[in-house]
């Protein structure tokens, strides 16, 4: 388990290598990248801002939850912050397990929980010069735990 909030470009292949092990017959990699369109508006760039120490803490909590729900899974995640361009990877998750179901489910769990709980915000830059904070529409209404 390793989670990190970083300001450098992400390297998906490095995370895939990190979770490889002789017993792990299945690895799943998730890569989230900056899209050119959101809600029908042309996006030119964006910046991610984090409450970094809490984001790292919450991300690590999610990864520990995944490793406890899917026994034997190895899972790592890096989320990038700062200014990103179109096509840049903003988040990479790699999960590996002897069996594919656990690798898929753990990777999916991490991205779903990350989008709900990890304090990271995104400001989109639009072609018309406008800037806007956007959210994932999945904020929990109640304080978790």
């Amino acid at each position, binding site marked *: 388990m390793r989670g990190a909030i970083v300001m450098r470009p992400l390297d998906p292949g490095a995370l895939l290598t990190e979770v490889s092990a002789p017993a792990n017959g299945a690895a799943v990699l998730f890569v989230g990248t900056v899209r050119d369109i959101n809600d029908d508006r042309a996006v030119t760039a964006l910046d991610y801002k984090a409450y970094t120490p809490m984001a790292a803490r919450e991300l690590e909590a999610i990864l520990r939850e995944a490793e406890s729900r899917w026994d034997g899974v190895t899972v790592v995640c890096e989320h990038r912050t700062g200014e990103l361009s179109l096509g840049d990877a903003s988040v990479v998750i790699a999960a590996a397990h002897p069996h594919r179901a656990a690798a898929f489910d753990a990777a999916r769990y991490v991205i779903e929980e*990350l989008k709900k709980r990890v304090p*990271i*915000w995104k400001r989109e830059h639009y072609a018309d010069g406008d800037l806007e*904070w956007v959210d994932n*529409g999945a904020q929990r209404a109640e304080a978790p*735990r």
Partner: protein
Amino acid sequence: MMGFSTPVLVFARYADVLGSGTVTVELPSDATAGDVLSAVRALPGADQLPPSPLIAVNQRYAALSQPVRPGDEVALIPPVAGG
């Protein structure tokens, strides 16, 4: 008993509406996270905050009943957008 003043970290849209990334509020000595919210609501621009923004105490999401003591790290957490 004496109250105390504490900084509150604010981020993203909340920082825009409150005009700063950190605001300072006065709290009673037996304060809770709910008291932090009430104090923030009295600040200029706070009318643009949602009805019940999330709050974190010492980098964990907190219930409104959670005590807040001098030295605790307190933050308002806007709807997140990671991923």
